[in-house]
Structure formats: structure tokens, C-alpha cells
């Protein structure tokens, strides 16, 4: 048993823009981040320092340019930086949850199905998955009349709460939160703070970007400084 659920070693990322004459934009250089179960690490640094890029690398959305992203996945240690597409899909199903800033809207799919999807992917029976999804949506003050509607027509705040419900409906060993409270009112912010505390108590290793200083101070166990690559 080690004391981390997620750990990066010498993580690098640069973008090579072929269409701009091959210019190289270094973003991350040698990031070493270690997050323990039950801990919430807030990424800290000026705008453009690479916080979102780091989050996307941790989710496998961006490919790492170098270094390792180690995970506890299914009883073993897996290097996400070297994982193939099958393994990344399995990691996203079982190990890493991700709440992005914006909901990627899938046309015509009811909100409750969007929220239940992570449970369904793990094989939870449909009735149970929908019930748990509806309960989570209720907690986030999404009224039942919205559950059966596709979120495409929802307001920004409602979409964000659908996104949060989807992120918190299933327990994750690692949970990535990219500005989870950005477009929420005070009451819903409180709900999200509670949900994060519950996730920590349940043993999730949480990594977040929180622009809201109040929320950050309340949920973050510690800060992790992200510095622009030289």
C-alpha cells in the first residue's frame, strides 16, 4: 500500500503547431504531483500557467509529451502516459472521474440518462442507475421536470449542475474538477462543497482548479503550484 492514488513524474507537455510554421509552445515541464486518497489538491498559478493543460493530461485528453502519470487502477499501477486507448477507456470507466467546465451536450439524450451514464458503463442496472442519477440531480436542485429533457436547451448553470451530477453520481478513486462552481449560485456552491467533502471522506483523491477562493479554502487540503514552462 502506497500513500498516493495519482502521481506524476517529470510530466512534460508542449504543443507543436504545424500550421503556424512548426512553432513549439512548451506548457508543462517536469511536473511532479502526488495526490493521496482522501486529499484534495488545488492547482494554483496564474492564468496560462498550464493548470487546465495539466488536468487534461491527467484525464488522458491530452497526450503527455514526456514523463509518467501513475495511477492505482484495478489493483495495479498503470502509467496513463503510456496507456493505449483501451486502457484509457477502462481508466475513465473505473478510476478517473472528470468534471469539465462545460457539458458536452449529446443531442436528444435526456439529462437523467447523461447523469446515469457512468453507472451504466460500470454495469449498474438501468433502474438503479436512473434512480441514483435522479437523486443526485435532486441534490443539485435540478427539478424533476428537467430530468427527461435533453440538456441542450438548459441554462449554463443547469448544464453545469448536470455535469456535476454526472461527475459525483459514481464514486471515483481519482476525481478531477475543472472550475466546478464557476457558474453556480451560493446555494448550489454549498452543495458542491459538501459533495467534494463526501468524496474525500470516501477516499477519493481530488484534484481541482478552483477560481472561487472561498470554495478553494474550504475544500483544498493543500495547493499545488503550476508554473509556466520556461
Amino acid at each position, binding site marked *: 500500500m502506497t500513500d498516493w492514488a495519482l502521481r506524476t513524474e517529470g510530466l512534460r507537455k508542449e*504543443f*507543436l*503547431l*504545424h*500550421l503556424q510554421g512548426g512553432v513549439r509552445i512548451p506548457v508543462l515541464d517536469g511536473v511532479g504531483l502526488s495526490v493521496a486518497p482522501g486529499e484534495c489538491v488545488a492547482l494554483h498559478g496564474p492564468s496560462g500557467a498550464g493548470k487546465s493543460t495539466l488536468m*487534461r493530461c491527467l484525464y*488522458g*485528453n*491530452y*497526450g503527455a509529451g514526456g514523463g509518467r502519470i501513475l495511477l492505482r487502477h484495478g489493483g495495479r499501477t498503470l502509467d496513463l502516459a503510456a496507456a493505449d*486507448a*483501451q486502457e*484509457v*477507456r477502462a481508466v475513465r470507466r473505473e478510476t478517473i472521474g472528470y468534471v469539465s467546465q462545460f457539458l458536452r451536450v*449529446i*443531442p*436528444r*439524450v435526456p439529462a437523467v440518462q447523461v447523469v446515469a451514464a457512468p453507472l451504466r458503463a460500470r454495469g449498474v442496472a438501468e433502474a438503479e442507475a436512473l434512480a441514483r442519477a435522479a437523486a443526485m440531480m435532486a441534490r443539485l436542485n435540478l427539478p424533476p421536470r428537467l430530468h427527461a429533457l435533453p440538456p441542450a436547451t438548459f441554462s449554463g448553470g443547469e448544464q453545469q449542475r448536470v455535469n456535476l451530477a454526472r461527475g459525483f453520481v459514481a464514486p471515483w478513486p481519482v476525481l478531477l474538477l475543472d472550475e466546478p462552481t464557476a457558474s453556480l449560485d451560493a446555494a448550489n456552491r454549498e452543495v458542491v462543497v459538501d459533495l467534494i467533502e463526501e468524496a474525500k471522506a470516501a477516499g477519493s483523491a481530488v484534484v481541482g482548479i478552483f477560481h472561487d477562493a472561498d470554495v478553494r479554502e474550504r475544500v483544498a487540503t493543500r495547493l499545488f503550484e503550476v508554473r509556466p514552462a520556461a
Partner: protein
Amino acid sequence: MNGPILAARDLHLAFGGLRALDGVSLDLWPGEVVAIVGESGSGKSTLLRVLAGQLRPQSGQVTYRDAEGVAHAVQSLSDAALRRLSRAEWGFVHQSPRDGLRLGVSAGGNIGERLMALGARHYGRLRETAEAWLRRVEIDPGRLDDLPRAFSGGMQQRLQIARALVTGPRLVFMDEPTGGLDVSVQARLLDLIRALVAELDLAVLLVTHDIAAARLLAHRILVMRRGRVVEAGLADRVLDDPQHEYTQLLVSSVIAA
């Protein structure tokens, strides 16, 4: 099941001086949707035809693992074995309904044909099945006895999907299924495909030049150019963090996929 359902290794095929396939390899896993994207002439449709056994590569292997786990070398199957596989375990959705439907046969007959080819001989049950599939692809079951000629383009494509999926295939080949449709109709069709693929746990090879379709449907994307796979990987990574110059061009030329 362990291992890919379909695996291709080092496929080569040239038409005269044109290298349609120049060392292409790929794996398709059970339940996985892989989109093959690229511009016209990139070799993506040729690749689909080779994988489905309709064209023979000059070299390389295509291996299909059937429902019993038996491996078949697709490129050297007999016509009879190939036809048996393609009607029992595979489905095809073509760009043109003309290629995928019998326009002079009723909607019910179109859906029932593959079942009848597999030995179904109960008229009443064939009709029940066809009606159920019309509902699933959002066509009024009252149109069961209508000819597809009288259907809109979007309905024809949905009928084609019902016809392809009615036998419960494990692997479905789709060649530009939304090509030639209005944008609003495309969205509905894509969404229907997405839902059915997830529900039926299908392995799908989707050829498309529509990046938005690939993002919506595919778990993984292969980018082809001039007969080669220039980039391959997780769908969102290929589109959000493209590495190859050609992929960057392809992604940047799409308006907010």
C-alpha cells in the same frame, strides 16, 4: 471476450500507381466504435472494403474472430464463407440507400430479408420484428408495407440501419452513413446510431469525413492520408490534441466540432 474482433496487419493495395493502402494496420475491439477519417481519396473507403472482404489486398492480413472465438482470415475466405459471415455476424450501412436497400421491396420486406436468408419462415413473426425495428429507428410502423421509394432520405437511411441490425450483428461497417443528408437530418441519424450502438454493444467501423460525427460516435479515430494511417488514438485526444500536421489541418478546418 479477449482480443480484437477484427485485426488488420500491414495491408497494401495499389491501383496502378495509386497507393490506396500503404501498410495499414488496425485493431477493432468488441463494443468499440472506430472512425476512419480523411479526405476523399485518402483510402478510407478502400480500407473498409478490404476489411469487409469485398476487396482483396495485395498483401497483409485481415483476421475476424467470430462469435465462437474462431479466427477467420478474411482476405482468403471463400465466397460462401464470406457471405455466411456477412449475413450472420456483420452488418453494412452504405452511403446510398440504393446500395443498402431494395427500393422496390416494402420496408417490412427489406428488414425481413436478412432474417429470411438466415432461415426465418414465420410471416407473422417477421412482421412483428420488422414493426419493432421500424419503431426503434423512429419510422411509423404503419409504413411497414410502403416502398422505401416513398421515404425521405433520412428515413431511407434509418430503414437501412434497421435492415443491417435486425439480425443482431456483432460488427457493423458504415460507409459515410450521413453523407448526402441535410444537416438537421444528419444530427438525428447520428444520434440514433449512437444510441443503438451503445445499446447493442456493437463493434463499428465508421468511415466518414465528418469530424463531428466521428467525435459523437467514435471511441477511437484513425486519420488516413494517401493510403496511410497518419494518426490514431482515443477520439477526444486525436481531436483535442492532434499531433500530425494533417490532423491539425483537418481539425482546424472544422467549425467547433
